[in-house]
């Protein structure tokens, strides 16, 4: 019975994290972007520096009318936000936050699970793009698919390099095998993984599929109210998942210079938060890549780099064993 209780508690904890962290990242984005651009950002909602802005946004979204276009494919149109959001919740279950089995559910092939399920989330954008019966949405869906196909491969190769180094596909297992010198050893793979992950999330500078100055908001053009909010939530949950995965795979997760045993979860959080900050920073810094530049970056830069990393991992692994 206590096993069942422990499982329920773990899943509940993951769910709470899933509800809270994306909102924190969203609020951070408001404030960080504002200060980088010499503005203040939201200041009124909730009193202290506008901390409740996203809560107010949520209330606003919930009040809006739920519109489905007359020409749309109703059921698929309504199902798409759930397909986009749920995979990230599932991935969070497999991400370890601390030592001694501090993970929602330890999986034997955790790396594969995380990447496979993250790939499913893109189906939501494709469904939205097609079912909206809108040419801008369709273009957005097309670009989403092209981008996913190009960036899935370097992401997988980079993750495979870490799995080779650790000799296991399990995320807690990879962390158990981690040493500090993995940082310089796997740095190329880390950069490739993070960049490809950004592209998969369609975050700037890889936001061609939702480029607002060309195709309004891509696949999400026809959405309003709660369903639109769910797509936004999926984006922020994606940022959290990508940052946490990068931290676990390439930055050592709960390992830190001191206090691993007691403060391990704090190290994971600090690394994840730092990477989330970088994601926001990149959005403010870089202009949008054109479609041909996007494809070129994936096929001629990231994939060769990932292959170099795999070769390097193999050589070092053979030498030290």
């Amino acid at each position: 019975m206590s096993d069942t209780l422990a499982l329920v508690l773990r899943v509940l904890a993951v769910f709470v994290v899933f509800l809270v962290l994306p909102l924190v990242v969203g609020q951070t984005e408001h404030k960080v972007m504002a200060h980088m651009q010499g503005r203040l950002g939201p200041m009124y909602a909730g009193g202290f520096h506008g901390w409740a802005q996203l809560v107010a946004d949520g209330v606003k979204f919930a009040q809006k009318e739920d519109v489905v276009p007359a020409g749309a494919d109703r059921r698929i149109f309504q199902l798409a936000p759930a397909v986009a959001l749920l995979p990230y919740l599932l991935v969070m279950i497999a991400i370890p936050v601390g030592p001694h089995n501090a993970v929602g559910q330890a999986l034997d092939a955790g790396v594969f699970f995380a990447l496979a399920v993250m790939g499913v989330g893109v189906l939501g954008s494709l469904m939205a793009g097609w079912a909206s019966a809108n040419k801008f949405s369709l273009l957005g869906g097309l670009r989403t698919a092209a981008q996913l196909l190009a960036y899935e491969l370097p992401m997988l190769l980079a993750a495979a390099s870490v799995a080779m180094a650790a000799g296991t596909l399990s995320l807690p297992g990879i962390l158990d095998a981690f040493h500090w010198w993995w940082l310089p050893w796997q740095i190329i793979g880390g950069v490739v993984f993070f960049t490809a992950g950004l592209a998969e999330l369609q975050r700037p500078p890889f936001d061609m599929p939702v480029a607002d100055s060309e195709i309004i908001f891509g696949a999400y053009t026809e959405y309003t109210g709660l369903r639109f909010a769910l797509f936004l939530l999926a984006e922020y949950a994606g940022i959290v998942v990508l940052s946490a995965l990068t931290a676990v795979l390439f930055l050592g997760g709960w390992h830190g210079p001191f206090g691993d045993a007691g403060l391990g979860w704090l190290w994971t959080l600090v690394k994840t938060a730092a990477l989330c900050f970088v994601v926001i920073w990149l959005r403010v810094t870089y202009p949008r890549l054109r479609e041909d530049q996007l494809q070129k970056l994936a096929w001629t830069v990231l994939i060769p780099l990932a292959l170099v990393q795999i070769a390097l991992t193999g050589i070092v692994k053979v030498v030290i064993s």
Partner: protein
Amino acid sequence: MTLAAAGPGFLSPTGVEIAFVLVGLATLGAALLTVTTRQLVHAALWLVAALGGIAVEYLLLTAEFIAWVQVLIYVGSVVVLLLFGLMLTKAPIGPSPDADSGNRWAAVTVAGASAAALVWIVADAFRTTWIDFGGAVQGSTEVSGRSLFRYWVLPFEALSVLLLAALVGAIVLSRRTGAKGAAEAVAPGTAGEERR
């Protein structure tokens, strides 16, 4: 009949076996809808359900690694490629009038025959094999990798050569049409006229 009696019987199914049959039925239903629906994109999405159902079946058979590979390759990539292709066509919202092929009966015959052959062969080969859920996991990444690279290296390598050949073939084919396309780009009017 003595062989069947050696393993657990069919008359007292466990929870996992019941779940396996139910998921199998759902997968079969999704697969039937894939080939019978008149809406092209719906067919692709029912295919997602069918492929996902197969992944769940793998999980129930304790083959965790294979299950996630199934999700990654088929649901995550092949279906995305399919949808990408469908978006480039005029796949309408609502039923496509020309979605039915004239070869319906030939297709049903071939599908039925191959299904019967597969069921017969698989049932015959694994009739007395039972998965012991209490013992060591038989489908973990380590076990799969060990058997793949210890006993099945040659087929594995042969397959990779086959895939390489397919890749090279695809490049050759696309380059040939690419050269034609370039020629058309030089003289678009004349090439278009010739084709008509």
